[in-house]
Each structure stands twice: as structure tokens, then as C-alpha cells.
């Protein structure tokens, strides 16, 4: 009933699902950790209480997001083995140590100081608490460093030799870590996280400015987010372009798929704005193209020749339609982010940053754009690497575990059900926290006195614990 092909597709889909779902949370965690460090630093430096209020406001959201990132991340450290055991056996000697360094330098640092960051301000004092916040932020960045080093090695492998059983044996760790695509990927991804966070913070600020343009917390967070956007979005577009040129040099087939270039263009390649790639026929249907612009962007010359997928054996083609469209979604959203930043800059110069409802509505709509762009970019680079797990060296079909399709199918369904159920609820709780406006003397996690707090942990309970308990839980 099931053959091995099905098990492969299911294993790939399961991994793509869990990895993509997981990626959503760190995309915000990385940026938010840095933002929280900036807020606390500004509070310590200026003494303005609005920064502490904003710290408390965002740290509650951070805590929920972080927990979802942790539990969805643990899954991944085991799924390499459950789904990709042959890959793990062969590439483990190279990829494994990079991930071990991620755990040792990053995960422990984040986890070790998270408790103090969330709950420890009154216990350890300001200076040490700020140190803890910085440690958590540093941990998120170190984590990006190592996991993207591993990913970049799979994209542009270097620094290894093969042994007699076909394992990749490390030769030069410097080359393995700093592969050709790594610096571009690292900067592009971290900036993507910062943009994602700026858009989320900006949308929340805008939402509350629409209701009350005089709320100091809303004003400060909106101004900070828009400032971040106008600085970061142009840099990100530049870095993305450089990343693309790097990919053209090292993974030309991926670029052919991103551009939808089935055919070679000896006199200059077009830039497709729209089109439906037909993988079977090897052609672009309903194409809307600007002639020669593709060559101009990628080769900086209108007439530079560019090879198409017709120069590549079909068994080495990635799924063109997915890569073509995910790339366009990412770039399109990037342009919209730049537009939002530019409009906000204009508003600032005219002194209308806090009272221009149209700008605020635009910012709200763009709130989730960062997540979509990050996932689209991730899909572009990962699907563009197909049909290989290690580019040019190990095929995806040869990486998979010897699993039965029913086992993978059953667990895939379980993952989909659990992830959508649990994480939707988490997102709902985050949205509910975002729905209330930042207030002066915003409560932190240590002394949260919102109505959702349990009676058992309020100071009232300290005075007369039995009475409080008895009143609330007489039934037991």
C-alpha cells in the first residue's frame, strides 16, 4: 500500500512542518531579546520609567514566545535522527559538533539566565538583572551563529573529506564554520529577525495609538520600531542582494529556480514579475517579464549571458514553482517594509508620527509581514537546495531513515494537530496581552497583579493563606 517514496515525502513534509513552525518563534525571540536589552539599558541610563514599563510589557510576551520556541526546538534535535538517520550517520561528524556548540554556548546561556531575567529583578538588583538580560540576548545571537553555520555548510560544503564508509570527516573547522554562504546568511537572517520584531512592536504601538495617541508607552514603542525599520530595511535589501550574488556563484541552480529561468539567455536574461512555472514542460507560463533586467541585477550588465535549467540535468532540478514564488513573496514584503519605513520617516519629519491614522493602519497590516517573509526566505533557500540535503554531495532521497510510511504518517498527523492546537492558543494569549495598552507601572512577571493572577500567590494569601484558599477552593 505504501512504498518508500511515500515515506520519503512524508518524512520531508514532517520535517519541513516542524522546522518552519519552530522558526516562527525564534524569529521573534532573537529580535525581542535584543529589544528588551535595549529597553532595560535605556531605563538604567535615562531613568525614565516608560522604558521599564515597556520592558515589563514585552517581557510577558517574550516569556510565552520563548516557551513555544523551546518546546518546538527540542523536537528538532531528535528529528534529525528519527527522520534523517542516514544523513545523521554520514554528516553527524560535521553538523553534530556545530549543534553541540549551539547547545553549550547558546541554549544553556539563554536558559540559565532566563529565570533571572523573568523573575529575578527584585532578587538580584538592577545591574545583575541587566547582565542576565544581555546574556539571554547574546544567547539568541550565538544560537543563530551556530545553527546557520551548520545550515550554510549544508548549502556550500567545505573543509571536509570523505572516509571509507562515506562519512563526512572534518578537516578544517574554520572552513566548515565560515563557508562561502555563511556570512551572508547569518547577517540576512538576524536582520530578518530584527525586522520581524520591529514590525510586531510597531503594529502593537500603532494599534494603541489609534485608540489613544497620548499614551507615552505606545508612542515610544512605535517611534523605536519605525526608527529600526527605516534603518534596517534598506540594509536588509542590500544584504539580500549580496546574498543572491553569492548564491549565483556557489549554487547557480537555486538562482535559476528563483528566477524561473528554464531556458538559457545568451543575450541577457529577463526578470519575471509574474508567471506560473511548469516543471513538466520546462517552461514559464503566463510570463510577465522585463527584458534584460535579470542580467542587470545578477550580473550588473544588460546583455550578460545567463544559463538556465536547460543546462542542468532534470534530476538535479529543485521544485521551481515553490522557489520562484516564495522568493517573490519575500522580496515583495521587503519592499513593503521599506515603504512603511519611508512613510514613517516622512511622518516624523512633518511631526505627524503619532497622529496619522493611515500610517498606523499600514503598520498594523504589516505586523505579521516579517514572519511571512522569514518563512518565505527559508523556503526559498531550503527548497532551492533540493534535491540535495548537502548541496551536490548527498541527495535527500539518500538521507532518509528506514521508516514505514504509516509510522511517519501517524506522527505527522499528531504533529500537525498538536502544533496547531497548542501554538494557536499561545498566539491567542500573546494577542490578548498585546490588546491591552502599555500602562505606567506596568507589572512584570514577578508581581503580576492582573485579574488572571491566581489567588494563591497574591500577598493576600500571605496574610491569611487558609482563608483565601478555603474561599476559592472549598470544593476540595
Amino acid at each position, binding site marked *: 500500500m505504501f512504498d518508500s517514496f511515500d515515506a520519503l515525502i512524508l518524512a520531508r513534509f514532517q520535517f519541513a512542518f516542524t522546522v518552519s513552525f519552530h522558526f516562527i518563534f525564534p524569529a521573534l525571540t532573537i529580535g525581542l531579546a535584543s529589544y528588551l536589552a535595549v529597553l532595560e539599558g535605556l531605563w538604567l541610563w535615562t531613568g525614565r520609567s516608560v522604558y521599564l514599563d515597556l520592558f515589563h510589557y514585552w517581557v510577558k510576551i517574550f*516569556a*510565552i514566545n520563548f*516557551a513555544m520556541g*523551546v518546546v518546538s526546538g*527540542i523536537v528538532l*534535535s*531528535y528529528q534529525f*535522527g*528519527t527522520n534523517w*538517520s542516514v544523513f*545523521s*550517520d554520514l554528516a*553527524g*561528524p560535521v553538523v*553534530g*559538533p556545530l*549543534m*553541540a556548540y549551539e*547547545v553549550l554556548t547558546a541554549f*544553556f*546561556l539563554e*536558559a*540559565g*539566565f*532566563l*529565570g*533571572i531575567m523573568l523573575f*529575578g529583578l527584585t532578587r538580584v538588583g538592577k545591574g545583575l538583572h541587566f547582565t542576565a538580560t544581555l546574556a539571554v540576548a547574546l544567547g539568541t545571537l550565538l544560537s543563530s551563529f551556530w545553527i546557520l553555520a551548520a545550515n550554510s555548510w549544508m548549502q556550500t560544503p567545505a573543509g571536509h573529506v570523505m572516509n571509507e*564508509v562515506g*562519512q563526512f*570527516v*572534518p578537516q578544517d*573547522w574554520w572552513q566548515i564554520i565560515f563557508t562561502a554562504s555563511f556570512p551572508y546568511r547569518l547577517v540576512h537572517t538576524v536582520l530578518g529577525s530584527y525586522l520581524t520584531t520591529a514590525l510586531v512592536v510597531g503594529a502593537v504601538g500603532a494599534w494603541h495609538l489609534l485608540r489613544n495617541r497620548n499614551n507615552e508607552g505606545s508612542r515610544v514603542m512605535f517611534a523605536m520600531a519605525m526608527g529600526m525599520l527605516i534603518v534596517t530595511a534598506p540594509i536588509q535589501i542590500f544584504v539580500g542582494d549580496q546574498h543572491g550574488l553569492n548564491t549565483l556563484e556557489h549554487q547557480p541552480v537555486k538562482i535559476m529556480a528563483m528566477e524561473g529561468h528554464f531556458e538559457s539567455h545568451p543575450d541577457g536574461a529577463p526578470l519575471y514579475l509574474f508567471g506560473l512555472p511548469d516543471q513538466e514542460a520546462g517552461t514559464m507560463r503566463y510570463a510577465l517579464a522585463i527584458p534584460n533586467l535579470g542580467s542587470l541585477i545578477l550580473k550588473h550588465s544588460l546583455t550578460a549571458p545567463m544559463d538556465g535549467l536547460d543546462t542542468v540535468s532534470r534530476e538535479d532540478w529543485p521544485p521551481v514553482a515553490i522557489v520562484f514564488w516564495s522568493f517573490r513573496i519575500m522580496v515583495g514584503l521587503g519592499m513593503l517594509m521599506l515603504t512603511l519605513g519611508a512613510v514613517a520617516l516622512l511622518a516624523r519629519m512633518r511631526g505627524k508620527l503619532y497622529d496619522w491614522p493611515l500610517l498606523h493602519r499600514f503598520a498594523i497590516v504589516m505586523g505579521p509581514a516579517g514572519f511571512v517573509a522569514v518563512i518565505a526566505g527559508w523556503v526559498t533557500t531550503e527548497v532551492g537546495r533540493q534535491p540535495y540535503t548537502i548541496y551536490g554531495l548527498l541527495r535527500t532521497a539518500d538521507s532518509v*531513515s*528506514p*521508516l*514505514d510510511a504509516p509510522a511517519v504518517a501517524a*506522527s505527522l498527523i*499528531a504533529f500537525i494537530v*498538536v502544533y496547531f492546537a*497548542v501554538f494557536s*492558543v*499561545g498566539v491567542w*494569549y500573546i494577542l*490578548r*496581552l498585546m490588546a491591552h495598552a502599555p500602562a505606567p507601572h506596568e507589572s512584570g*512577571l514577578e508581581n*503580576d497583579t492582573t485579574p*488572571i*493572577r*491566581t489567588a*494563591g*500567590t*497574591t*500577598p493576600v*494569601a*500571605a496574610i491569611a493563606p487558609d482563608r*483565601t*484558599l478555603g474561599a*476559592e477552593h472549598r470544593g476540595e
Partner: protein
Amino acid sequence: MDLPVLWAFILAFAVFAYVVLDGFDLGIGILFPLLRRGQQRDQAMNSVAPVWDGNETWLVLGGGGLMAAFPLAYAIIMPALYAPIIAMLLALVFRGVAFEFRWRDKAHEWFWDLSFAGGSLLATFAQGVTLGALLQGISVEGRAYAGGWWDWLSPFSLLTGASLVVGYALLGSTWLIMKTEGALQARAFRYARLAGIITIVCVAAVSLATPFLEEAYYERWFAWPHVLFTAQVPLLVVVAAAAYFFSLHRRYERLPFLLSLGLFALSMLGLGISIFPDIVPGAVTIEKAAAPDESLIFMLVGAVVLIPIVLSYTAYSYWVFRGKVGEEGYH
């Protein structure tokens, strides 16, 4: 000592750190339904809220470290134990998010309590099953798992699953003795006594069954003169168990936790005696599964420098949140 064996010891340390650290907070999840709603449950959860994430990181180190240091073992064990591993991961999702979600939704607190308790119970049981399935042997051909996807299920693996549930409940209850006072502590003393008795029975059952699973295990335990050394392990278990019940009787607050850690350490030593020098019992040795020296040396530098640093700031975090949880909350 050569590099692969050294790495086997480092990973064994990571697994032990995971088992005792996440053991007590999973144990609190297992005991959760027995605690009164409201203050008792809040206190129990708050006693681990600042540290659970760090505790669970040792599990990631165990998985990532196994892939890095013994990729062949990782590649064989994960598909072989597919079902219990996936069950554990999904259960950990439910239990991990409950730490945050529970405080955000008073109306559905009951659901997240259930999620915390059920997730802890299932994750623990799956870990125990994993251990049992590993001990009873995995069918290997070439460099891959060659069995079916129900092979892990056996009376022995169910026994180890149940044993670990009781064992973690022991760690959880003794942790609560140390961290709480009053009515909750009195409860914890009762649970600790019961969990202690059942744990000892389970340790005995697993210990008696193990040497008869594989001839090699029997040899490692009973061959002369090994037995002079190995016989000390059950003797020490008896001594530790006696000291444990005495400490409960005298109402010591820290000693029961430390002695239950000792019982876990001895059980781990027993497992090591059974398995060594294999890493996939009966199929693959530590030497054969090991990654090339280039990988092991690169990581050893990191481990030697970083693990002590990790341990010191972890200890600092525990110190910051030392003492009884009392009535103050973290949410």
C-alpha cells in the same frame, strides 16, 4: 582513556544531569493531580518555573551530543525508538507551554494543569520505555536499524517506563520537601515515602530482569572477579535506601532529595555496567559508533571549557532562587 570512551562518559554525565534535573520537575508534573488546586499547585509549579528550561536543555545536549559524538548510534537508535521518542517530544510540548499558559487563562487553568500533568507523565513513561527498549536490544543490519516499528514494545520496556514514572515522582516529592513548608510539605513527605517504597521495588525488578536479557549483561555482572566490584552496587543501593527512609522518618528536609539523587546515580552506574563497552547494546560498540577524532577533539575543547561555566551559572541561578517558595509567585 581514549577519546570515544571519554565522550561516552561526558554524554553519560549529560544524561545523568538531565535525568536528575528534569526528573524532579517532571516528577512535580506527575504529582500535580494529587495536589490541591490553587495555592499548592501554584507553589509546586513556582518551585521549578525559573529553572525548568535549563533542566530541559540537558536533553538537547544529550540528543545533539549523541549525534555529534556517536552519529552511528544516533542514526540507529532514533528510528528504532521512533514511537516513544515522538511521544516524548509531543508530551514535552504540552508540559512546557503549560508553565506559561497556565497563568494567562484562569478560566482554562484546569486544562493546562491537565496538560502539565499528562505531558509530564507521558514524557517520563516514554523515556522509561526508551531505556527498556534500548536494554532489550535493537536489531541492526549494516549501519541501520533493521527492525519493525513496534519492536520497542515489550513487558520489560513497560516495566522500565512505569519504574521511571515512580522514580521521577520520588525526585519530585523530595524536591517539594526541600522547597516548601506547611501542608504541601506534609503531603510531599507522604508521597516521598510511598514513591520511595515503589521505586525500590522497581529498581529491584529491573535489576533482576536485566542480567537475563542478554548473556553479555550476565557476564558483566557475575563474571569473576568483576563481581567483587559489581556486587557493591546493589549493596550501596540497600544502604542508600535505608538512609533515605531514615531521613524521611527524622523529617530532614534536604537529605531525602540528596539520597534520591544517590539512588539515581547508583541505578545509572548499574546501567553503565550492563551496557559498557557497547553504546547500542548487543549491536554497536562505543569505538565503532564514534565520530572521527577530528570531531571529538573539536568538541572536547568546547566541553572542557564550557561545561564548567554552564554548571557554575546554573548553580548561580539555583542559588538566586534558593529557599522555600513560600507565597510569593513569579507570575
